[in-house]
């Protein structure tokens, strides 16, 4: 019996065993006053407002802490209960002078509502007169202790959701007060500005600093949409006044974020209204941009591209699509390039992050995406995280890992050359030398096989090529692996046992695995490891690449790639091509196109003459920036469509102003294949236009009219051509969205892949040998440079650096260096140094930290002032053509 029957106020209700009266009441629409309870947080039982009576039991009990039992009869309100609640609220109100007049929470304050509902006209107790100063050191949070009722929700949110444990109570009794850190200003603590504390605070004690005096709760128009930053795809609610976004909340029902957000999602939206926004098309005359009319700009674009196509042929043109744009826009973009340019030279930045994932996983499993869902991580016994600084790059998932390690007993194995935050929560941390991933993964498998820890049944029934693979792995003894990777034998063995023995093991990785010349090999190795232990096709298992950009998954899915049409259907397959030709009504080029880095190369060689870039910034994101500049400057005609005049746009001949996520409709597909709906929240800024409309205009002018009335219509066409999106239609995407594959209208979507059968049939083991990185430190360039991201910025910073709070928190880039090396070079924190590689040089400030090992330095690539990609190597993975951002050799000089 897992359900119990009880009555609440005489109403018969059913509930799951083990639930509390509060949960049952709320689920049945019965209101019980409460302040300390909040769904998703642990239970405190401290406000005592939820006291109810239970027939047959003396006195009152707290609804939030009392479990329901069969035949329980609950009374949630009577004269005595109401009077007790009233007195308690009066006590709270006497603790401080509550001033609702200018309180940001006026109208959405749970205390105010309670006082009203209980009809409190007068406070019987003397009201305290002392007034505490507010604390505003944080860029984003305003703390007003006078409004704090010590409910502890923020403390629990910070400890349980973000797992930063910045907040707590100090002193005791009536002297209790909320602190951050050692009673320090927030800015001096470990606060990561996620705002979980603000979202949960029932009163005006914690509020959004920048929203102060910007609008009252009842003035806001609320629009639900998707965070524009990363691949987690958090659902957000925009609060808008006068077409301006004032604040953002996490949507509690969001399937992957459950109300939680990171600093970017919650506070980084102000770029939408930034003064730098492009509001009109620009055409360059004599090296200077001049404002132009849409007609003028569009005509020029169409004419120029037609000219180049006629003169040099289709393959002299290329397009770079955008992982920031919607699925519908990506679909249109590749369709446009393939039809109007007549070439498959279309790619986007996924090339730079996860091309090797798609290549590797497609080969091993038949599908190049995250095998499982984000929420399933809680089912895993062991999570192996490698090459992912999850807490900074996918904060909501990273914090979830911390939560699982701290509260769920989930064991984390972290394999990373840097001492990232997750290593502090890991049971085992393996610190490998950069670029030696195949070796340690083979080493793990060597131990697992030798100790008989692998899943023989799974290997037997569901995979092929085991024997070949086994031969290679048998060479990677722990001793040999230690020599290559620097990982001590015992640690490797311990990790192998931990993963090998787990019933459910999940592998998580990101660019630390993919951005290598051996990126595809690395991914194949991880796939081998998962198959070896039978960790594919079940909840809480799998091989899970965390995708970077908000819609990089979608951009790939929708065929913004040179070798595949939407749904990973091969361009080279005649049958596939014919299908698209029929629907689109044109002849399509059969030859696979060029990838990002190849396009740039071809441009510098003069083979590509015209380039159309939508929402990408290769001038910061691509490796070997000097070479990129050369390439772009060598073009005859460059069109950039963006919302800001990026480093790349500055080189363009024509700039077309697109719109931000807030100004358009469409869908994004998040890292776990979830297709979610974007709602238009505000009209386009200035004369800017939705990107899909711009593409239609150019297409029309190049002789292929497109006539969609809405993104929904585009999705219908996508569904008809793309089996994995076959059942995806806008009317089905409310709330939870849909996870592909979703082949038909009736299909509920697929939380995890390869359940009984791999997409390709059997899982394929691939023997992989270790190959050293293309460029290793030597005498001239003695340091190994690795690049990555920080929490507060995104990609090339074109959005996040235009957000006041984000840029305020992290205004500049650093070179991270170990204390040992710093000492050797005689440099101190904040000293300026020159970093140079064979490709370029830059100046940057130094941060000395244990996070990097000696001999290794680390930089982010967000900052144009110190653009790390001036240094990086454009050596490519031979299969996926992904550049080796994670390893290049540099030298460092004091200046």
């Amino acid at each position, binding site marked *: 019996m897992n359900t119990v029957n009880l009555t609440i106020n005489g109403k018969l209700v059913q509930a799951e065993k083990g639930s509390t009266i509060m949960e049952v009441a709320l689920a049945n629409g019965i209101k019980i006053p409460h302040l300390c309870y909040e769904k998703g947080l642990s*239970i*405190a*039982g*401290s*406000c*005592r*407002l939820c*006291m109810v009576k239970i027939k047959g039991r003396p*006195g*009152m009990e*707290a609804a939030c*802490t009392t*479990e329901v039992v069969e035949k329980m009869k609950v009374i949630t309100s009577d004269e*005595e209960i109401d*009077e*007790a609640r009233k*007195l*308690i609220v009066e*006590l*709270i109100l*006497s*603790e401080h002078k509550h001033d609702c007049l200018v309180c940001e929470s006026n109208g959405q304050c749970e205390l105010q509502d309670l006082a009203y509902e209980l009809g409190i006209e007068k406070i*019987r*107790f*003397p009201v305290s007169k002392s007034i505490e100063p507010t604390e505003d050191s944080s860029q984003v949070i305003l703390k007003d202790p006078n409004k704090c*009722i*010590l409910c502890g929700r923020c403390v629990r949110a910070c400890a349980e959701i973000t797992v930063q444990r910045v907040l707590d*109570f100090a*002193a*005791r*009794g*009536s*002297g*209790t007060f909320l602190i951050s850190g050692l009673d320090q200003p927030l800015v001096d603590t470990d606060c990561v500005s996620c705002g979980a504390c603000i979202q949960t605070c029932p009163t005006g004690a914690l509020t959004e600093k920048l929203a102060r005096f910007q609008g009252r709760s009842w003035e806001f128009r609320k629009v639900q949409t998707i965070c524009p930053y990363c691949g987690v795809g958090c659902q957000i609610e925009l609060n808008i006044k006068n077409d301006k976004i004032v604040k953002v909340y996490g949507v509690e029902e969001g399937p992957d974020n459950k109300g939680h957000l990171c600093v970017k999602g919650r506070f980084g939206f102000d770029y939408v209204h930034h003064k730098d926004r492009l509001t009109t098309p620009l055409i360059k005359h004599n090296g200077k941009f001049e404002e132009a009319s849409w007609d003028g700009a569009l005509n020029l674009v169409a004419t120029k591209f037609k000219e180049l196509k006629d003169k040099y042929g289709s393959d002299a043109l290329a397009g770079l699509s955008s992982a920031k744009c919607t699925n519908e826009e990506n679909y249109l973009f590749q369709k446009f390039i393939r039809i109007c340019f007549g070439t498959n030279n279309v790619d986007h930045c996924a090339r730079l992050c996860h091309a090797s994932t798609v290549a590797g996983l497609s080969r091993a499993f038949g599908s190049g995406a995250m095998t499982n869902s984000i929420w399933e991580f809680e089912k895993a016994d062991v999570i192996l995280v490698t090459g992912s600084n999850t807490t900074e790059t996918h904060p909501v998932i990273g914090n979830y890992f911390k939560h699982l390690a701290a509260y769920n007993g989930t064991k984390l194995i972290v394999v990373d050359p840097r001492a990232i935050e997750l290593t502090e929560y890991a049971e085992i941390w393996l610190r490998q030398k950069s670029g030696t991933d195949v070796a340690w993964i083979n080493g793990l498998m060597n131990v697992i096989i030798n100790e008989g820890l692998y899943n023989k049944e799974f290997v037997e029934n569901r995979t092929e090529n085991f024997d070949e693979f086994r031969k290679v792995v048998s060479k990677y003894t722990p001793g040999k692996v230690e020599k290559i990777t620097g990982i001590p034998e015992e640690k490797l063995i311990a990790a192998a046992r931990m993963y090998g023995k787990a019933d459910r093991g999940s592998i998580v990785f990101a660019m630390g695995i993919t951005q290598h010349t051996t990126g595809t090999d690395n991914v194949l190795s991880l796939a081998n490891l998962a198959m070896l232990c039978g960790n594919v096709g079940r909840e809480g298992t799998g091989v899970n690449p965390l995708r970077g950009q908000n819609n990089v998954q979608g951009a790939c899915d929708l065929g913004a790639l040179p070798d595949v049409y939407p749904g990973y259907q091969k361009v080279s397959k005649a049958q596939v091509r014919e299908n698209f030709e029929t629907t689109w009504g044109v002849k399509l080029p059969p030859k696979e196109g060029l990838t990002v880095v190849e396009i740039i190369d071809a441009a510098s060689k003069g083979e590509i003459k015209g380039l159309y870039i939508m929402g990408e910034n290769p001038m910061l994101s691509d490796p070997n920036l000097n070479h990129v500049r050369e390439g772009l400057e060598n073009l005859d005609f460059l069109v950039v469509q963006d919302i800001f005049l990026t480093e790349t746009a500055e080189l363009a001949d024509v700039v077309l102003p697109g719109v931000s996520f807030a100004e358009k409709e469409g869908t994004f597909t998040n890292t776990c294949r979830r297709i979610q709906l974007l709602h238009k929240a505000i009209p386009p800024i200035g004369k800017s236009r939705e990107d899909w409309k711009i593409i239609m205009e150019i297409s029309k002018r190049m002789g292929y009219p497109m006539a969609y009335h809405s993104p929904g219509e585009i999705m219908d066409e996508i569904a008809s051509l793309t089996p994995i999106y076959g059942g995806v239609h806008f009317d089905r995407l409310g709330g939870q969205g849909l996870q592909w594959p979703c082949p038909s209208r009736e299909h509920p979507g697929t939380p995890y892949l390869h359940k009984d059968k791999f997409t390709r049939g059997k899982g394929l083991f691939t023997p992989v040998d270790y190959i050293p990185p293309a460029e290793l430190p030597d005498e001239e360039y003695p340091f190994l440079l690795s690049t990555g991201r920080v929490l507060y910025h995104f990609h090339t910073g074109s959005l996040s650096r235009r957000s006041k709070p984000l840029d305020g928190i992290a205004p500049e880039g650093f070179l991270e260096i170990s204390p040992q090396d710093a000492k050797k070079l005689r440099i101190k924190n904040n000293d300026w140094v020159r970093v140079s590689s064979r490709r370029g040089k830059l100046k940057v400030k130094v941060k000395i930290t244990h996070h990097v090992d000696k001999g290794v330095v680390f930089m982010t690539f967000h900052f144009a002032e110190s653009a790390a990609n001036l240094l990086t190597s454009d050596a490519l993975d031979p299969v996926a053509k992904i550049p080796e951002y994670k390893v290049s050799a540099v030298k460092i000089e004091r200046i």
Partner: protein
Amino acid sequence: MIKELKSPLRVVLENYGRINPESIEEYIAQDGYEAVGKVLREMRPEQVLSEIKASGLQGRGGAAFPTGLKWEFTAKAKDAPKYIICNADEGEPGTFKDRAILEGDPHKIIEGMIIAGYAVGAHYGYIYIRGEYLLSINRFNKALKQAREHRFLGEDVFGSGFNFQIEIHQGAGSYVCGEETALMESLEGKRGNPRFKPPFPPSSGLWGKPTLINNVETLANIAPIILKGSDWFRTFGTKKCPGTKVYAISGHVKEAGLIEAPMGITLREIIIDYAQGMRDSKFKMAQVGGTAGAILGEDMLDVPLDYASLGEKGLVLGSGAILVMDETTCALDMLECFLNFFKRESCGKCIPCRVGTEKLLELATAISRGEGKEDDIDLMLHTAKVMQKTSLCALGQSLILPISTTLKYSREEVTEHIKGRCPTGVCKI
């Protein structure tokens, strides 16, 4: 050495003052560790449980929960490991019996803990001693060392295969940490906030594991019960409350100190027979059970001081502290003192108690300064009643008792203050 008033019988205090507490040999000479030997050699855990149950022993920490039953719940809990905790946080004002036992006969507690561990299937015990009791901590430390040396603690005690360890945890100044769940939070290294119950410690206690927590005096009764039997134990005290009780007497009596007497002795007997009567002036009232206890007036001098008899009257015996006050005492001044204690010691977790204790003290202080209103008295009573019904733990729930009983006997005296006069002249108006 605490003054021990001449007691007719000794169960808990049998060795108190008679042996050198720092010598395990002297303890052994008084049949020390015999009970552990008997239990480990001759009894199955269930037999121990039934013996304790049969004795009718009730928890001496204040709540008087039947000890045998608590042991049985813990024994039956499925989870492992299990823990034993000895609650030696004695913070109830006017109480100093646990200190006496710890300082005077520490091995008796070790013995009680080992037996409890065996009975419920726990191998690890903690004793939480309040930080102010440094002598107790030192003595107990020595006793533990000796017991380990004699292999009463450690692996394979008495060759029985049973392992048991005890560790001391020192408190750091907090009354509420005597509350069992707050104590566990504190032991775990957190702020001493009580947890909501259920779950109760026998099913989910220290680190969420089944935990048996008993008061020092409770555990001091175990070895005698095992050695002499539950029938012998039941020859003391009343039917409902068997055994003896250690009462701590303070205040305006000639001789303050400890007595061990059969449960059910009266206040009059205690004051006259043991404490040698009142010191200077006539008896006015007494507070029984510590600061959270009730005020008893003259009419209560002959009520038996045991859990059941007091319980019937809505009063409590609590820790057994007795504070005797004579006619020079101002009832309101004392009430203010009690409220000040609660305000200091409230943990602040739940709203009714955190703010309630503060506001009650504010109201009482205003009255004692002659700034009160007649309504304030009723507001105090009403607030305390709401606190009783809604507070998270027994601290906030118990303020009603001193307030309501003070007002029962001395409402007029309190009202006089509002009119501008302190009848005893204690309060400065």
